[in-house]
């Protein structure tokens, strides 16, 4: 149903934004996540942590938002869900460059969707947003 998104910016050599998601990510709200990622990029973030500790459910439309977030953090325009696939398989062909978005605290229900659809391979998953942020700011 409802999903809340809280944004926090972490300064550093590589500015990182942490978006803390809580509730359920589905067709009614996935566009808000895309907007939040865009806003973070606009504030200068070049790495993104999606803290999913409080996210209890993700519908397949959530995958579109996660994938869009990767594109946005690469500096690309977010994909128009009504148009091209092109970008996704470009992304798939260079999976290592997709590592500018990390997921933290992924709950089993969400991980199952990522596993089942094969999109798990696009993301690094960390136990906490602190670890994910540190990894992005890359010691």
């Amino acid at each position, binding site marked *: *149903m*409802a999903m809340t998104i809280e944004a926090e910016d972490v300064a550093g050599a590589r500015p990182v934004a942490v978006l803390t998601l809580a509730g*359920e990510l*589905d*067709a*009614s709200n996935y566009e808000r996540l895309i907007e939040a990622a865009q806003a973070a990029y606009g504030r200068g973030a070049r790495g993104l942590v999606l803290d999913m500790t409080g996210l209890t*459910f993700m*519908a*397949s*439309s959530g*995958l*579109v938002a996660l994938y869009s977030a990767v594109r946005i953090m690469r500096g690309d325009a977010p*994909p*128009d*869900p*009504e*148009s*091209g*696939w*092109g970008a*996704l*398989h470009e992304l*798939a*062909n260079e999976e290592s460059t997709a590592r500018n978005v990390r997921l933290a605290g992924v709950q089993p229900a969400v991980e199952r969707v990522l596993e*089942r*659809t*094969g*999109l798990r*391979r696009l993301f690094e998953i960390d136990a906490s947003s602190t670890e994910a942020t540190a990894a992005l700011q890359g010691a």
Partner: protein
Amino acid sequence: MPDRAADTGRAELTKLLGEERLAELVRAAGQPEATALREALRSIGGADMAAAERIERELRVAQRVQRSLVLIAEPALEGWEIASDYRPAREIGGDFFDAYPILEGGDARRLGFVIADVSGKGISAALLMAFVRPLMRAALDRTATPADALERTNRILVDERRTGLFVTALCGVLDIENGVVTFANAGHELPILVPGDGSPIRSLPGSGPLLGAFGRLEVDDVRVELHPGDALILYTDGITDALSPAGARYGERRLLDGVRRSRPGSAADICRGIVSSVTRFQREAPAADDLALLIVRRPASVP
């Protein structure tokens, strides 16, 4: 129902006003989006209303065409029962299924079947569905195994038809003489096996990535034998993601529990049981997603 005007209106208004201005208007109106859109559409005036009405009419035609594409003539195969249901969340949707005899030298010894879900709803999903459905049927007809059929469909989607949508699909072949099912799964919900002998209901694992996303699927064929009394349930996430008015999801557990209680029944009984359970659960809440269901059952005793 009233949402159709809003959906039509949204596209039209975006064209007229641009995304930002439209979002502003909707916010300023302080009303649910659908209401705000309808009001805005009304205020634009006669000429555009006529355009909106024309689009609505065409949508209704599209809806009929799309339903006729999805609904299958459930093939009559001696010793087998097939049942299906389909409920789009909006007027037209992106879920589909297929079940048809594979003809070899005039005999139908095998049944091909598919269930798939194009992510997203509405016209773009329906159009992609209309493209993918015959593609899957042709691929399944011509390839040695379901995994090859998915691989071939994926390659076409990746190389030639790039859309912004995700497609999960499961396809398989049933040997109607010995009951052996071979299937492969590209990111779709796991099928449910309901044994007729009373042993536990279970989901059948084995899944690769969804279609269109990666150059190679590398998905495996899964083999399972349907004994007399066994049923195989294929479904889309419109069932498990269905929302109650209080905001609960129907979920896999309710689905499995419902099926457990309903057996042993015919394929049509199982199908009706699932749909009415989901409908009761949703009550007046709007459907979150398309819902599609395909059941293949080998009756316990062949009359």
